[in-house]
């Protein structure tokens, strides 16, 4: 099949082709550029929700239950579930779907697992692009799950309209949560497995932290107690997502937020490309080798070395 035929079938809502197109973009096939150009004009209709939080906090189960509820109102839902690649073998074991079994036969629900393949921000490299593809395909809601290794996974908030941060009573005390930087990115906070010991303490600690972090914000993030396994608290979560959506729309923030994200993406990728170009430059590489030798021989300090390199890079231009 040619790429044109692929895109035609994509237009006809062929799920198999959707899956293939995602692969082409994820694997950076040469067709990728054309696909993204085509997709670009069609995005912006779907509402994007990010779910982040430590491993074992029940994100996947929460997504399954939330999706079940959302299906009462929406027909088309896309889910992207990120899992880590092994840093040793580069393989990955993608197991989020296990907790989403109840969605496997739901028409209109499309789930895609993605391995991080070395990306360190809790998302797979092409998560944004895949979300765009799902958007262009006609998904009304797109839910993105981060890997949740407990590291800083703030990148997700740039990709979505509403960020839900999930904790469990075992997540540790307030200080650790604060360290993880997650209190600043959440639009909604969830304490899942809230029947466990420590849920109430966590609730109050979290409440205090959020009040500080969001004192100047018009949006005051709610904290919801859930037990995803028992379907408890999911209705409230849905309600708060809608509230947050309304807040963004009423205050004309939705477009602003999305535009900012696009610009940030542009900056990020631009910087990455610049670096690439820089490193491809023979001269730069040569001066770097010289400078590093001098640094190692203690003829230069690291700071002096950097100054020298900058001078040469600038001079070169």
């Amino acid at each position, binding site marked *: 099949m040619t790429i044109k035929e692929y895109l035609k079938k994509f237009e006809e809502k062929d799920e198999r082709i959707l899956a293939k197109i995602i692969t082409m973009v994820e694997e950076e096939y040469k067709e990728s550029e054309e696909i993204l150009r085509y997709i670009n004009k069609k995005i912006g209709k779907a509402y994007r929700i990010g779910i982040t939080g430590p491993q074992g906090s029940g994100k996947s189960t929460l997504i399954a239950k939330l999706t079940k509820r959302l299906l009462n109102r929406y027909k088309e839902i896309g889910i992207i579930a990120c899992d880590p690649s092994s840093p040793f073998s580069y393989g*990955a074991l993608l197991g989020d779907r296990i907790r989403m079994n109840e969605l496997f036969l739901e028409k209109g629900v499309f789930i895609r697992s993605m391995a991080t393949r070395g990306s360190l921000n809790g998302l797979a490299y092409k998560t944004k692009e895949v979300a765009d593809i799902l958007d262009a395909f006609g998904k009304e809601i797109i839910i993105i799950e981060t890997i949740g290794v407990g590291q800083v996974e703030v990148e997700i908030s740039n990709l979505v309209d509403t960020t839900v941060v999930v904790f469990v009573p075992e997540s540790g005390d307030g200080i650790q949560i604060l360290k993880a930087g997650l209190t600043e990115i959440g639009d909604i906070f969830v304490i899942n497995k809230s029947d466990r010991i420590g849920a109430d303490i966590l609730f109050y600690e979290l409440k205090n932290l959020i009040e500080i972090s969001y004192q100047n914000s018009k949006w005051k993030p709610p904290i919801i107690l859930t037990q995803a396994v028992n379907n408890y608290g999911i209705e409230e979560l849905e309600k708060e997502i809608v509230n947050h959506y309304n807040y963004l729309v009423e205050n004309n923030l939705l477009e602003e937020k999305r535009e900012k994200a696009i610009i940030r993406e542009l900056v990020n990728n631009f910087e990455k490309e610049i670096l690439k170009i820089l490193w491809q430059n023979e001269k730069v590489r040569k001066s770097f080798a010289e400078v590093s030798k001098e640094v190692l021989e203690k003829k230069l300090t690291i700071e002096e070395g950097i100054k020298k390199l900058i001078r040469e890079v600038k001079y070169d231009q």
Partner: protein
Amino acid sequence: MEKKKIKILIAKPGLDGHDRGAKVVARGLRDAGFEVIYTGLHQTPEMIVNTAIQEDVDVIGLSILSGAHMTIFPEVLRLLKEKGATNIHLFGGGIIPDEDKEKLYQLGVGKLFDPGTKISEIVEYLNNLFKEK
């Protein structure tokens, strides 16, 4: 179009709970550099094929120890055909007597591994599969 990363769905159909083999294989294949999707117990053929299509996997590996292999393999093949996904390779492992194996091979099922197979054999099999193409 050349594919860089081989994606494999390891699925556990049937009602039995013997997932030790499936999990050990899933882990072993991960350690051999594949991207493995594991979906848990009690998967019906419909669920397996839907997942395989959405994830655009190259291979499906079924672990069957309940004796239902003569029902499940043909049904998965039929659904793959129905949905136009015959490019997905289907193989499996479990307790499958030789004469049943023969029948399944003739239907187009890939290699069926016996209990006690080394993971390295499965890895080799999968690698050869993609070398040929």
